[in-house]
């Protein structure tokens, strides 16, 4: 059984590689063309740092607002999207379908559309990130709910509580630690995502990255990448510390 599965996986991978026209010999022959750029990327221009501060702050602000709005909106939606907490099959299917639709649009496409509607800058970025967040948080939280023990909820319903009250009293306390953890994770994702959506003008470090890249200023680009790395590392340790406190 396992042998057959491995053969199948290898077969699919090779088929995919052929379909995409992966050309390993070409990489081997041509990687030297990138040498000059790579060397520049390994030498950050530290003097450029003060100029990056406004963009960095904007990225952080966008991430904070998007995470806050996104998590507040997602929590009730997640309860509607879980079989454990939504007893109405029609409503459940509708919400899940809507969430699937929201999640299937890439964040950068949301950003591009919103920039055209709302203009270049942080606002379109925040709106794009909120939609991106809703897709993630609702999925993670509703799957958490699906796996929860329903005993306390049965007891809450047996006291005469309505479904919303029973869910609030019995299910919310159960998933709060994992919800908090997922919100922190989403915040990290927002930092990274905001750099990408900046490429289409939706604010933050992304706009700065696009500027320096298009002028081939790789030393400056290198510094920005380093800043993002530091930010991600700081967030990572802060969030694991917080997550341990929450369990």
């Amino acid at each position, binding site marked *: 059984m396992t042998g057959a599965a491995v053969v199948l996986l290898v077969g699919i991978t090779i088929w995919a590689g052929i379909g995409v026209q992966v050309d390993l010999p070409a990489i081997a022959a041509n990687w030297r063309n990138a040498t000059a750029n790579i060397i520049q990327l390994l030498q950050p221009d530290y003097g450029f740092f003060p100029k990056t501060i406004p963009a960095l702050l904007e990225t952080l602000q966008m991430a904070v607002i998007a995470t806050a709005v996104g998590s507040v909106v997602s929590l009730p939606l997640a309860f509607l999207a879980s079989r454990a907490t939504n007893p109405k099959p029609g409503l459940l299917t509708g919400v899940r379908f809507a969430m699937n639709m929201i999640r299937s649009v890439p964040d950068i496409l949301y950003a591009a559309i919103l920039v055209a509607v709302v203009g270049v800058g942080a606002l379109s970025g925040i709106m794009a990130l909120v939609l991106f967040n809703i897709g993630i948080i609702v999925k993670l939280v509703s799957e958490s709910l699906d796996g929860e023990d329903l*005993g*306390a909820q*049965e*007891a*809450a*319903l*047996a*006291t*005469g*509580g*309505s479904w*919303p*009250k*029973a869910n*609030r*009293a*019995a299910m919310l*306390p*159960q998933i*709060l*630690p994992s919800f908090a953890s997922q919100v922190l994770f989403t915040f990290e994702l927002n930092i990274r995502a905001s750099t990408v959506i900046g490429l289409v003008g939706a604010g933050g470090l992304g706009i700065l990255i696009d500027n320096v890249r298009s002028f081939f200023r790789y030393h400056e680009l290198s510094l920005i990448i380093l800043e993002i790395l530091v930010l991600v590392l700081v967030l990572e340790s802060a969030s694991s510390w917080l997550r341990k406190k929450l369990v």
Partner: protein
Amino acid sequence: MERTGADIRFHDVSVTYPNGFTGLKGINLSIPAGEMVGIVGLSGAGKSTLVRTINGLVPITSGHITVGDHQLGGHGAAQLRGRELRELRSNVGMVFQSFNLAKRTTVINNVLMGRLYHSPAWRTLLGAWRNDDVELAMSALERVEIVSKAYEKASSLSGGQQQRVAIARTLAQRPMVILADEPVASLDPPTSHVVMRDLQRINAELGITVVVNLHFLDLARRYSDRLIGLRCGEVVFDGAGADADESVFENIYGRSLTAEDVLSSRGSL
């Protein structure tokens, strides 16, 4: 906390599950207000089903049940729905075998679940309970002698303590009936006696009708006024515990008694 109990009457009640299995067959019972009844029988005899029809957790397929002024089923087995069902349930407290507490939150929050029906939605959403409700919850915890644990996380309590919190939760409802579905099956013998004594005391002092589903015969005989024996979804014995002798139990269980049917045979330290 003065409230009188409600009487419970079963009129030709049957329950057939969606898969075709018949849980209860034409049950007729009359439980007067304030009585404490023990339901015994083999697993699968219908004990749990019987208890759960009283608060509508299991829907009945035919017949009807009256609980005080409320009626379940009847008129072509029309089921109680929505607000009326919730009103019935607010008057019926339930204690479960696995305690069914919200483990990650405090003891007092668990007891306050008993006030869910009576609290407006916005209060329960924000956790902004009325002072009266918190007082009620606290006095319920006092009655089961566990008020010192009010602000501890429910999961930090022992099994017996958790079950007492569950009993406090039912008391917070100020119910007319308390149902208990194998309340001591997960507890050791001494703790089982403590919990059964609590239920007996509540029945005697507050006049609440108590229906307890029990696995152990000696507990059932010792703590209930009246014993109802079920076998294959039908009542095969209904009378005082004292009247139930060996032959009666063999009729209920369809076999002679073993050590597993009696709590005290589990030994003590």
